[in-house]
């Protein structure tokens, strides 16, 4: 279910995450914070995700539990996208 989003998310993470790791090395469970993601950089990431998927993240989603990996972002997006 979530994996349909994973490729688009990976693309957005590479574009907006300001990571020091090349895209091909980002698995769905790669720790994005260890790859150089900062909490400030999650803002750009979130805005781009909102635009791409036409969703709005809630305040309580703006943390490591959401942005920790591409997989966790995909889960969050799946929750927000209207069924």
């Amino acid at each position: 279910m979530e994996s349909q989003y994973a490729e688009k998310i990976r693309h957005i993470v590479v574009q907006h995450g300001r990571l020091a790791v090349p895209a091909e090395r980002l698995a769905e469970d790669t720790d994005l914070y260890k790859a150089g993601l900062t909490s400030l950089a999650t803002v750009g990431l979130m805005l781009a995700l909102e635009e791409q998927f036409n969703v709005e993240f809630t305040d309580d989603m703006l943390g490591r539990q959401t942005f920790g990996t591409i997989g966790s972002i995909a889960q969050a997006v799946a929750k927000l996208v209207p069924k």
Partner: protein
Amino acid sequence: MPDGLLESVRKIGEEVVRPAADDVDREARFPAEAFAALKSAQALSAYVPRELGGAGLAIGEVARLCETLGHYDGSVAMIYAMHSIQVACIVHHARDTAYFRRYLAEVAERQLLMASATTEVGTGGDLRSSVCAIELAGGRFTLAKKAPVISYGREADDLLITCRRDAASPAADQVLVLARRAECGLEEISGWDTLGFRGTCSSGFAVSARGSAEQVLPAPFADILSRTMHPVSHILWSSLWLGIATDAVQRAHAFVRAQARRTPGVPPPSALRLAEVDTVLQTMRSNIAAALHRYERVLAGEAAQESGFRFAIDINNLKLASSTLVVDIVGRALLVCGIEGYRNGSKHSLCRHLRDAYGAALMVNNDRIAGHNATMLLAQREGAKDG
């Protein structure tokens, strides 16, 4: 609080800190007499838990101590605040390891003074990125860092240093490492001859440290920063700036009272300005109290820190407001005291206060902080509210 400690610090302020303040400022020298006295009062372990030999104060009580010292000398208060921030990082994030429990007990036992090396040549003042990386091998570490500013680096017993987790880590994947003085080389790369906070002796150093792998704090620096270093820094700094501002207003107050005695029945024109500055001082004080209350609730687990960026934004707002208000307040007090305030060495002098006050906006530059808030506000859905 053990009123004992607050009372001792007040007494040290009157008897040791204030008399030396002008000399410390003029010579840009470390306030050695102040710290000898603070150590004998066991003030350097104020935030170390009682079971490890400290006073086990709450963060609000440490803030009171910073404010109190700020009345007497901004540099002494700043050094005390910075030391307390380092202690808080260890107490909150490393006290469960055997090494750091022993270390905290040693801080209490020997009244060790801790300093911080977070900024680095080449990162443009961004705490959240490091060039240097720790190298671990066989349970030991080595680390080399060029720090443009290490306050009281020369006089500190130990240092907390940020660096990348390992040589392959990106700039933002950082850890915090304790470097013990005996295993740490310091070569001065820049001096400290500044407008204010001259006694903090914040020279730049090339640091080369080694030690045991246990000296790496277990939590990622990002967590230590967001949960402790960021809020505690801005609360303690604001508190000592409040001390500077309060002393400035007290000097203005004494000046107005002396004027008023000469014309009983007719309040001097400066009395109105005193009333105005008193209003601003109350605003500054209330702001700090509110942030402190909020943070104490976060520490007690009664309020969440993690929901969005609101807490971080509000802590930044505290810093932006206090650092601006301290300049405003000292400037207003100067207008009240007039030429007597402008004169070095007079009992109403506000020269050192004003020079110190201008430093507040620069230590972590307000423009950088406002920029962070601008970014974080983009992600924020709800307006300001008490977390």
